[in-house]
């Protein structure tokens, strides 16, 4: 049984700013691909926004991917934040205490 793709993404680039629109369910089997996607984004843009409005499921491995990418971005003076958290995403980020760290918008636009 091979894992089916349970989530999709679209990238909108606008100058030094990228928006990654995610949809579907992302768990430990999808987190490595998300990690690659986020790292590629923060390598190529000063400001990365992850739109999670259509994300119906995340787990702790997705939080790991988001925090890792955010740390990498910060090390290079760049910014990654999550916007439009769906109810499930909001709940998971809130319970794990990373909601503010991941959703607070940076001053640089």
């Amino acid at each position, binding site marked *: 049984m091979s894992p089916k793709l349970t989530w999709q993404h679209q990238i909108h680039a606008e100058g030094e700013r990228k928006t990654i629109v995610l949809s579907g369910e992302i*768990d430990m089997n999808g987190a490595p691909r998300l990690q690659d996607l986020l790292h590629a984004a923060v390598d190529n843009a000063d400001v990365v926004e992850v739109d999670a409005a259509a994300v119906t499921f995340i787990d702790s491995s997705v939080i790991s991917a988001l925090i890792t990418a955010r740390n990498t971005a910060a090390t290079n003076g760049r910014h990654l934040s999550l916007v439009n958290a769906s109810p499930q995403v909001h709940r998971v980020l809130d*319970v794990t205490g990373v909601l503010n760290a991941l959703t607070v918008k940076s001053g640089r636009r």
Partner: protein
Amino acid sequence: MNDRQLGEDARVSGRSAARPVVLLSQHFTAEAVTPLRHLLAARVTAAGLSGDNGDDFVLAVHELVTNAVRHGGGSGHLDLRQVDGVLVCEVTDHGAGSDALPVDLPPVHVPGGRGLWLAHQLTGALMLTRRPDGITATVSVCLIRQTAAAVAQQSPAAGADGMVDASAIEGEQE
């Protein structure tokens, strides 16, 4: 154990006997994590735990399954049981390691280590048992209280009468 006698006792007392009912028993590996979560969600909903409470319980179990795959030797076994009005889910792995089990919340800049915290917070009832050959992680949720709360939300009049809730739950259990 005499099943017929248990059944008669249950009828006499007017409520289901405290005999565990197995709702799901499945071995899993990494590839099975996603379909297993979907199957678990269906069984949990069928047992009467729906909405946010159902989602929380499913995510808690999913974190235990993920933990077993990542740190418990790559595979494990999931058992979902109903004992009276309580859903109990046990996740067993065979990890050889004797690493500490981090249930505390790490600082925000640390990428990992939030799985067991989530399972604990979402259920309020996480139990970890270290066996000689691995870890058994158990979460549970009270079905009656959750369902009663849901009924009370939908219909304040019915929710005021606890007996209405209990009979509704027993009907669903079959």
